[in-house]
């Protein structure tokens, strides 16, 4: 189990916890921010595994633009999920 | 000019670029945008015609995009399935010419140029989807016509349109994801994205991943084709959309799911254990869809919902034909794809003309319209008669071949399903025709209605002639489609 494998497993575990966290959160703003973290961790996984182009795009799109769009809509539509 | 091979990529690129240019050149000038859209669609139809002549003259055409052979780049193929691009372009042209007056009232004036742009891009995505021989390219073109379809549903002013478009979007995105997942699995197993090469390289010794890819593709395209039980997004979307959009969605976009199945089943031809159970389930789901769709159509009061449910029924017929995969059943299904497209565009445009003139959607309110709007009523009548599959008309040819195919496959129960569904469709056709012709008008706006403008009547006239013509030309189309059938999903058992 080389150190890179350990880093992979840790990142993948973080990824799963973020996704489960998003599923359980009732507060949409928190879910959107957690989604931003989720995208960023995914970007780290890809950057670490030899896919820099995709990592850069995922970081800019997932963590950046999609989360801003989510937060803008959530601010207009209401924060709490029934 | 038919020797020039570059018409093939132009068939897809021309409407896409034409659509992209529409808001640039004609923002806030609806009539100019309409004229531009009609001419781009007409040009695309001519390109499709040239390709069809080339296909008849010298057989299938393969085109390496960018000069890269399939090992490196994307390969486009034009065959009998690709020939569906001609009726598709023609029907979009007719829907566009119909849209001029209808859209002036149904869509806000500032956004009409976007409406025309989205329809042209939808046509481009459809044409690209029909001619590509590359799995991922299939996904990209599918996304193009799907995104434009979601938006077109939402251009209608009704408040329910946004929710219907959203439901369509969720299911459409889910089905695109399943297709993309399957493309990933096929790539992981074969290393190539070209459908022909992947079919050759896909080793079915480890059946599970191939089964996964097959399930993903089948479910994904079944959702796009609105096969029962994943059809529930269709009625709301097609009823809420503007009439020309409902026509394009019901006649063409839904058929893309069927074409997707036809294209990708070729990958799993080797695995007997894989393909047969999936085809059987498609037959039974198609049968349930045919009966359920026809029944639901009978009980509807809104004419567009009725037509939407009849689309679900007809998709059921088509997929019964495909699932049976005997020669005549598959040929019948492929012909019914075209015939149903023509009939459904005629019906939705006729309904659109009624709505445009009277604002009424309920069948009971359409009473007595035949006197005030004779041509439209006649067109609607012809469409309904064709829909119910009465012999001389377009609807009969495909259904008859599928029934023959069912008998060949030794499954008479399916013939019973086809007959019952046909009777149900006949029932609601009679109900509508009766209301239009033999009942006194019950609404003031119906009594005071005037005939639709020429730009609406011209497409109705052409389509009515089409219904008669396609009914007569059944044999010609059978001979044209026949050579493609043995090649489908790697040979017919």
């Amino acid at each position: 189990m080389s150190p890179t494998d350990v880093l992979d497993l840790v990142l993948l575990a973080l990824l799963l916890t973020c996704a489960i966290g998003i599923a359980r959160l009732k507060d949409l703003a928190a879910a959107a921010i957690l989604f931003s973290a989720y995208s960023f961790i995914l970007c780290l996984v890809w950057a670490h595994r030899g896919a820099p182009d995709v990592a850069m795009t995922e970081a800019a799109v997932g963590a950046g633009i999609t989360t801003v769009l989510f937060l803008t809509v959530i601010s207009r539509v209401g924060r709490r999920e029934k | 000019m038919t020797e020039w091979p570059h018409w093939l990529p132009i068939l897809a690129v021309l409407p896409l670029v034409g659509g992209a240019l529409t808001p640039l050149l004609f923002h806030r000038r609806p009539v100019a945008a309409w004229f531009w859209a009609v001419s781009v669609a007409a040009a695309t139809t001519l390109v499709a015609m040239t390709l069809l002549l080339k296909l008849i003259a010298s057989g299938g055409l393969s085109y390496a995009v960018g000069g890269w052979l399939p090992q490196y780049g994307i390969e486009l193929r034009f065959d009998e399935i690709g020939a569906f691009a001609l009726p598709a372009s023609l029907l979009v042209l007719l829907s566009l010419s119909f849209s001029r007056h209808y859209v002036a009232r149904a869509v806000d004036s500032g956004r009409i140029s976007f409406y025309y742009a989205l329809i042209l891009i939808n046509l481009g995505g459809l044409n690209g989807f029909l001619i590509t021989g590359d799995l991922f390219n299939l996904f990209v073109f599918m996304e193009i016509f799907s995104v434009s379809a979601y938006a077109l549903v939402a251009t209608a002013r009704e408040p329910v349109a946004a929710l219907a478009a959203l439901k369509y979007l969720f299911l459409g995105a889910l089905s695109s994801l399943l297709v993309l997942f399957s493309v990933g699995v096929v790539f992981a197993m074969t290393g190539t994205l070209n459908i022909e090469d992947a079919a050759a390289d896909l080793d079915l010794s480890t059946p599970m991943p191939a089964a996964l890819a097959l399930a993903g593709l089948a479910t994904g395209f079944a959702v796009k084709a609105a096969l029962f039980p994943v059809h529930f997004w269709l009625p709301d979307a097609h009823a809420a959309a503007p009439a020309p959009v409902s026509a394009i969605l019901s006649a063409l976009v839904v058929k893309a799911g069927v074409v997707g199945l036809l294209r990708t089943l070729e990958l799993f031809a080797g695995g007997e254990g894989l393909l047969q159970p999936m085809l059987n389930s498609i037959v039974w789901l198609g049968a349930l869809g045919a009966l359920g769709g026809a029944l639901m159509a009978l009980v509807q009061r809104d004419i567009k919902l009725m037509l939407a449910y009849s689309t679900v029924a007809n998709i059921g017929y088509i997929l019964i034909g495909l699932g049976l995969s005997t020669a005549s059943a598959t040929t019948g299904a492929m012909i019914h794809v075209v015939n149903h497209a023509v009939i459904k565009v005629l019906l939705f445009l006729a309904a659109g003309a009624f709505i445009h003139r009277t604002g009424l959607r309920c069948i009971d309110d359409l009473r007595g319209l035949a006197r005030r709007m004779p041509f439209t009523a006649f067109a609607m009548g012809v469409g309904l008669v064709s829909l119910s599959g009465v012999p001389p008309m377009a609807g009969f040819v495909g259904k008859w071949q599928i029934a023959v195919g069912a008998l060949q496959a030794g499954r008479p129960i399916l013939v019973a399903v086809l007959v019952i569904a046909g009777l149900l469709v006949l029932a609601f056709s009679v109900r509508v025709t009766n209301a239009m012709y033999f009942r006194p008008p019950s609404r003031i706006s119906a009594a005071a209605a005037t005939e639709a403008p020429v730009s609406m009547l011209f497409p109705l006239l052409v389509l009515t002639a089409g219904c008669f013509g396609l009914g007569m030309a059944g044999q010609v189309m059978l001979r044209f489609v026949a050579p493609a059938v043995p090649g489908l999903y790697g040979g017919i058992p």
Partner: protein
Amino acid sequence: MNLAAEAFSHVDYLVTVALFLIGAWILLTSGNLVKKVIGLNIMETSVFAFIVTTGMIDDGAPPLLAAGVEGPFASPLPHALVLTGIVVAVSVTSLALVLILRVKAELGSVELDEIASAGEQPGAAAPPDSRGHAND
């Protein structure tokens, strides 16, 4: 024993399957439209992760053929596919969010059960016929 070794070597694939299912769970069970779009995004990123994983190679270099870089290269094709997929995902998400804004503006809420209950009352904003028969 080899199942465990097999599972360990395929851990990336298993994580993507798990993320796909979590995303599907959010999409199907959440009543809030915005939450559904977040779930859809998680599903999409999980499929992209799956495709990138097919192109990965152990201790290989990214597909950059700069002078002097040897060793096995990661496969460039999946990266091109996922780049295209990510931009498609943004397109679909932004369209979905605008539709949600319009649903909120016209139907008053983004919770499906609130919209459904509003739809049942007679004289609701939507024409009664087409609404009454939607069996979602």
